[in-house]
């Protein structure tokens, strides 16, 4: 091998670190322009509903337990709270789902009975039961990371679908389709 050949080979090799640097700088720049995923999805979808028993959130409705999801039909499990504003925004959609015969069981996060009662009086009550989760224990069991969130629980007791955030009017059909699939 002549010296000239070795030199040009060497020179080619020298470009590799620069190319790598450019690649990583480009990658970093690209990732900076990408939207950060704001929500953590539950990895419990497809798994059986964890066992739980919650006391009533106020004295107007019974509490909730995993046994209430057994048998017959798919149901919605709605995680909400009276202090959560998007929960007010989704109240009419829950009402609409209830009017179509969907059973909705609520879990109220870090909530006081009087606040729950006032919220339902003001914004309507789509629930058949509401359990009080004062320390987010069941919320964490479900892999849920915020309020409101809505889970579709199949008639076989498995978690079929997770909706993160408030249910907007355009989400109602989607949830109905998921309920249909969970039959």
């Amino acid at each position, binding site marked *: 091998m002549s010296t000239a050949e070795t030199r040009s080979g060497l020179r080619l090799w020298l470009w590799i670190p620069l190319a790598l640097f450019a690649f990583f700088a480009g990658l970093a720049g690209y990732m900076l322009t990408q939207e950060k995923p704001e929500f953590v999805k539950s990895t*419990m979808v497809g798994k059986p509903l964890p066992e739980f028993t919650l006391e009533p959130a106020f004295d107007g409705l019974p509490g909730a337990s995993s046994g209430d999801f057994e048998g017959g039909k798919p149901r919605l499990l709605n995680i909400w709270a009276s202090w959560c504003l998007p929960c007010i925004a989704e109240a009419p959609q829950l009402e609409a789902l209830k009017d179509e015969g969907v059973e909705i069981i609520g879990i109220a996060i870090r909530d006081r009975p009087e606040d729950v009662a006032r919220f339902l009086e003001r914004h309507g009550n789509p629930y058949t039961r509401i359990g009080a989760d*004062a*320390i987010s224990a069941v919320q964490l069991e479900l892999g849920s990371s915020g309020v409101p969130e809505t889970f579709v629980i199949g008639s076989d007791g498995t978690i079929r679908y997770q909706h993160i955030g408030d249910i907007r009017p355009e989400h109602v059909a989607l949830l109905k389709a998921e309920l249909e699939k969970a039959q």
Partner: protein
Amino acid sequence: MSRALALVVSGALALAALAAWPLASAIAQDALPPAPYAYTQLEDPALEAKANALMHTLRCLKCQSQSIADSDAPMAGDMRHQVRSRILAGDSPDEVRAWLIERYGDYVSYSPEVSQTTWPLFVVPVLLVLAALFVLLRRLGRGRSDKIASESSLP
């Protein structure tokens, strides 16, 4: 017409709700006292040390750039309560971490485990070190043979 109006109004309402949410929720979502072990250490210092080390490596779900040990969000408090009460009940830190990963995926842990999505994290550094070793050995080897060649060519 009225439909378009309704759409605009509901959109504005949703935006207003979103904008006001952090403020309002900060006021009212801690109306209840925090979970027993959210701000209270375990009595046994050895268990508390274990729980505390674990809490520094778990991501707060509501404030994703902080660990649950660093965050004052009510949900981070509830997660600390889970960690401490599970450690107190005799779970190992690895079991508690696995319990959370089963529910939230690898994302919840700041200390990555080898899994289907994380294996490149562990394999790429090894490959890079091997490549560097290869280049280094070749260059050293060539240097020596060049030297020998130049020495032998001396008269």
